[in-house]
């Protein structure tokens, strides 16, 4: 069970453009992605929409497989700009990792 946290979308805004709610979950980005299976990048975009922060951090490794070829953004029918969202997520994960790191020291 995931509790929906709508505020998360606003938290992400400090890391990049706010286009993620434009996505209507068609999956074109998943179909076009040449590198990664398992519903990338739609899965992460959906987790942003419902604010499932923990899921995003848990699945953060996928982000670093992305080559930023830009095919997803070019084919997105809703101009949700998945490639840019992935960049924002990278910034978020890095920031969170630093926080975790500091805590552990």
């Amino acid at each position: 069970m995931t509790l929906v946290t709508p505020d998360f979308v606003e938290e992400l805004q400090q890391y990049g453009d706010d286009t993620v709610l434009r996505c209507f979950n068609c999956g074109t980005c998943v179909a076009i992605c040449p590198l990664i299976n398992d519903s990338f990048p739609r899965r992460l975009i959906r987790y942003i929409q419902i604010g499932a922060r923990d899921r995003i951090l848990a699945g953060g490794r996928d982000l670093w497989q992305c080559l930023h070829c830009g095919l997803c953004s070019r084919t997105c029918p809703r101009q949700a700009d998945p490639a840019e969202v992935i960049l924002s997520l990278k910034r978020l994960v890095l920031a969170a990792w630093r926080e975790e790191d500091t805590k552990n020291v």
Partner: protein
Amino acid sequence: MTASKHQRSDRVGVYICYCGGNISDHVDVEKVRADVEKIPGVAVARTNMFMCSDPGQELIIEDLRQGRIDRVVVASCAPSLHETTFRGAITRAGANPYIYEHANIREHVSWVLHGDRATAKAEKLVAAAVGKARLLEPLQPIRVEARRHVTVIGGGIAGLKAARVLADRGLEVVLIEKSPFLGGHVARLDRVAPHGEKAADLVAELARSVLEDEAITVLTRSQLVGFDGYVGNYDLRVRAVSDGDGEGQGTYVPFRGVSGGTPPELTIETGAIIMATGFRSYRPRRGEYGHGDHAEVVTLPEFIRRFSMAESADGTLVLDGRIIRSIAMIHCVGSRQIPGIHEEDAEGRLNEYCSRVCCSAVLHAACRIRERFPGTRVHDLYRDIRTYGRDQEELYQRASGAGVVFYRFSPEEPPRVTAAQEGAAGQDFPLRVTVRDGLTFGEEVEMGVDLVVLATGMEAAQVGDLVAMMKLPVGSDRFLQEVHPKLAPVESSVAGVFLAGTAQAPMTIGEACNGAAAAAVKAASLLGRGYLELDPFVAEVDPDLCQGTGDCVRACLAEGALEMVEENGHARARVVAARCLGCGACVAVCPTGAIDLKGWSLKQYEAMVDMIVADLAEST
């Protein structure tokens, strides 16, 4: 009885169509022509690639003009397709259109049989048609006077629009409305999808123009209680709606008062009727998505009304003094119900149809909430988004842009609305909505909300009394049914009764006005000339043979189509042609064979049967 009744024509023209291969690929059309030509009474037998084409019709017209033939048989497709085409050709040749008989050798032959059997059956059907055609008589259409007056039942947007268009076409109109107000359901809306006009403006403008028009009489608080007559000449009885109905004047009704009695009836003489009786908003069962169990669960119409009085607290919605931080809106409530999944109503019925307007109405409401109150979150839970009309898909896009979050559920596992558990994390909301979300890969997600809005659909209005009185057909969805969904979309099967708006099916305001305008124009064109011409295929009594048994009157299916009258001291049956359906029930029961159908007489049937059982080679 005319002497010609028993005379057979010897100048039948037979025209056999190839239908561009549709028929000729399976039926040896030239063999049919050669054999049919030998049948007694056939003067001319011709073939053509397309009989319905201009050159094909010219063959018939030319033979008639030259006097070679005086009866016509066309063997082609179904009569529903081209019977009127060929009757028209005969009329253009200056002859009576009822000297025509049609043989269907496409649907009944070439589409279902092949080879010799197809050709043999085609010959039988054409021969039967020739047999009947030889006995056909010229007939005259029945002409009845028609009142240039239409009664519209229902004063919602469709009824108002129909009345407006009828008056513009120069007809007199009576508009009957049960409630004290005009405007129906539209009057209960605030701003309407997709463009956000004020419903009040739409209704007020239209209603005022109806009220100001001298050609339109508006009767509010009125209901139809009697229906008699026939197309062009209906007599309606209308009475004021009264709570005291059924109670004698002066009767004390406990906790109500003393009955004023049943109000007097008014008779309206009219030519046609437009049914604009509207819909009823679906009422959720107790417990359906928590409705009735939690005060925070409301229907979309209820929400729209409350939202019109919304207040703001720093950009967050306040309704009735309560701060609304988060709203869940659930689609398809009372629509698209599935047997075995959804619970049936008290009468064991389900609404299996899509109500068509709710998706756009919900999204419009969601956009308005988000745009006016950015502090309020909106969760939209749908099965499918069906924003099918112009500028409606844009509404879906606009909702996404405004930050509405969507969730997709399956009918097998609908969202659950429960009271929030006290002390649970992130649960300072009165309600919790849990849904297995198709967009989140089938995971269960949960949200805390202050309000749940149910997008309730449309149900057929409760007009059982009118349906029974006027014998109107009703679809399996309980809405009034048209004759044909595409080709006769506003006509009911009762001649002179038309359908307008949501009485017929769920539709938007624009669609309801379209339907209403179409119904009004159909009624106006029906009555415009002040008289009607009806098909002459009705019963006819031979007064010399009639014994006055009254069997036919008892067998008659159309009320008032047959009556007993005194003639020279004897009881005799008489046909009221305008009311007769031409079904033939009377012909079957008459002990003396005194009643017959014009254009479908027993003698004509016998001739057809004779030709079917005859060996064609023998008869030639």
